[in-house]
């Protein structure tokens, strides 16, 4: 209790809450936390119970305890790998320094460390890939959606194409995207890995549609009166879009963006598994192929990580929406 009270003290050491307020706050927190906590505890118990009774060819199905052990070991592996990397660079530097001391004109080679990508490296790769793909998709989809919403003609001409491509699993595109990237992205000093581009564009392909469709709906449902105001003021098209269309459509645009990001994240993992591109998907596939008694536990860690990251990405978008939207009172969920 005293530790908690200490959190709510300001710099002068004065309590920000009176004791009775603190009790109220704790009660409030208790209410907000009690049910989710209860849910999680029951889930963990059921999981452990079921896991104990399933034996697979790779050993027992992992329960929460094994998963916890594996997550610790993944952290340890990551730290070991980092130490190795530091040591590698240290050795290289020492070697080069010696060479230069002997002969100042010596040809010094600096090689990058090529160790095994750890679980956390793979998470970063996946996050980077999904962000890139999602960003490209949004840059295309938002203007396209606005154009569709503003002009019936544009909508009529683009709608059949959107409706045809929307239900296609982006994984069906994967072979085509792979071949296209290999054929078109030819450069001696590539800025991006080909595998990265393949994964990212696959994400882009599935991130386009929800944003286009929701933006279109948002733009077509602008209040008639506001459009009339714009017509009476004879606002130029760009001003009209900036001051009336975009602010009106922001909630729907964000609905689209959140749907896009969620599907993008799901699809990326599958694409990485299928194409053996670096990322969390590859991590899972490698573990599966590895087939040790620890593999299932490690895969389960990855599954949970994917879920938590997906959840955080959605919260992140929500936070961005809160910052951007004009209606601070709007309830966003």
């Amino acid at each position, binding site marked *: 209790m005293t530790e908690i009270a200490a959190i709510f003290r300001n710099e002068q050491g004065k309590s920000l809450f009176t004791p009775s307020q603190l009790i109220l706050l704790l009660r409030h927190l208790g209410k907000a936390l009690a049910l989710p906590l209860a849910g999680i505890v029951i889930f963990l118990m059921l999981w452990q119970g079921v896991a104990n009774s399933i034996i697979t060819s790779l050993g027992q199905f992992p329960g929460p305890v094994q998963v916890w052990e594996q997550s610790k070991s993944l952290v340890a592996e990551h730290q070991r790998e980092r130490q190795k990397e530091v040591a590698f660079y240290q050795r290289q530097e020492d070697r080069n320094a010696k060479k230069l001391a002997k002969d100042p004109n010596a040809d010094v080679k600096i090689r990058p460390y090529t160790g095994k990508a750890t679980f956390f490296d793979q998470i970063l790769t996946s996050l980077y890939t999904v962000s890139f793909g999602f960003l490209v998709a949004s840059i295309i989809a938002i203007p396209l959606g606005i154009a569709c919403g503003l*002009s*019936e*003609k544009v909508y009529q001409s683009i709608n059949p194409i959107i409706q045809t491509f929307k239900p296609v699993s982006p994984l069906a595109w994967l072979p085509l995207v792979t071949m296209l990237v290999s054929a078109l992205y030819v450069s001696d000093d590539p800025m991006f890995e080909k595998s990265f581009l393949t994964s990212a564009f696959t994400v882009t392909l599935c991130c386009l549609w929800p944003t286009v469709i929701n933006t279109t709906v948002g733009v077509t449902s602008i*209040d*008639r*009166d*506001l*459009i*009339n*105001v714009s*017509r*009476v*003021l*004879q*606002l130029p098209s760009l001003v009209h879009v900036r*001051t*009336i269309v975009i*602010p009106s459509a922001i909630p729907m645009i964000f609905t689209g963006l959140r749907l896009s990001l969620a599907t993008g994240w799901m699809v990326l993992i599958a694409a990485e598994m299928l194409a053996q591109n670096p990322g969390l998907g590859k991590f899972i596939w490698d573990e599966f192929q590895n087939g040790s008694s620890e593999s299932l536990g490690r895969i389960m860690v990855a599954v949970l990580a994917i879920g938590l990251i997906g959840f955080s990405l959605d919260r992140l978008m929500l936070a961005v929406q809160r910052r951007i939207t*004009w*209606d601070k*009172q709007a309830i966003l969920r």
Partner: protein
Amino acid sequence: MKNSYLEISHVGIEFPTDDKPFRALQAVDISIDKGEFISLIGHSGCGKSTVLNIVAGLYEATEGGVILEGKEVDKPGPDRAVVFQNHALLPWLTVYQNVELAVKRVFKKTKSKAEMHDWIEHNLSLVHMDHALHKLPGEISGGMKQRVGIARCLAMQPKVLLMDEPFGALDALTRAHLQDSLMEIQTNLGNTVIMITHDVDEAVLLSDRIVMMTNGPAATVGEILEVKLARPRDRLALAEDAEFIHYRQQVLRFLYEKQKNPAAEKEAKTEAELPTKATLDSDTTAKSEAA
């Protein structure tokens, strides 16, 4: 035909529907002098708003036309500012910014930044809203929003001020306040105003002439009543004024005797049809948007 300031000449309009075109207005003729305050009154669905929208240029008349200062109206423009029934303020802009948007469009070339700033504040003080310049529309009451809507239009210095049931969505007390404000502004500025209303007292209190419209479909001008009450008008004194009561009765008689039967029948029938007509209206605007 004499050359008046604003000439609504033989205006008729048809809206396309699935079976046969719906004729909303037929041969509407009104001529308005500069500085005149005109009310359009009639039962709901009689096409009052349609007349206003044609003058605004938001709808295109099927036949006939509107001539303002010798020029035909063919599209919406800031010289015909519209006060909408539901204020139509942009909810993401503050009171000040809402007026600024209009002022910037109209005076960009003729006023300096400082002049525009003063002009915006001046117009907001005309409607007594200078205390809430930096509030969002969501943070002020309905009456205040409508005041800002009026200020936005006044700030455009339009040739004609078009008001579409400007006080219809407000409670009686707020409405009275706003009517008084409007009369005060009108005394000073002498704008040419067309106001739509279905409040008889409001029409008599504010107008120089009241245009009474017959029931639709194919609605047209029924009678025009000239209100020769002296200005400034005081609502309390007028409440017992014989002349005022006489004008009031004439309007009521038109609305409830001469136009009674179709109205009563229509009310019962069109309750169900009204929503379809509303979507039909917005469809036509959507189409003209696209074109």
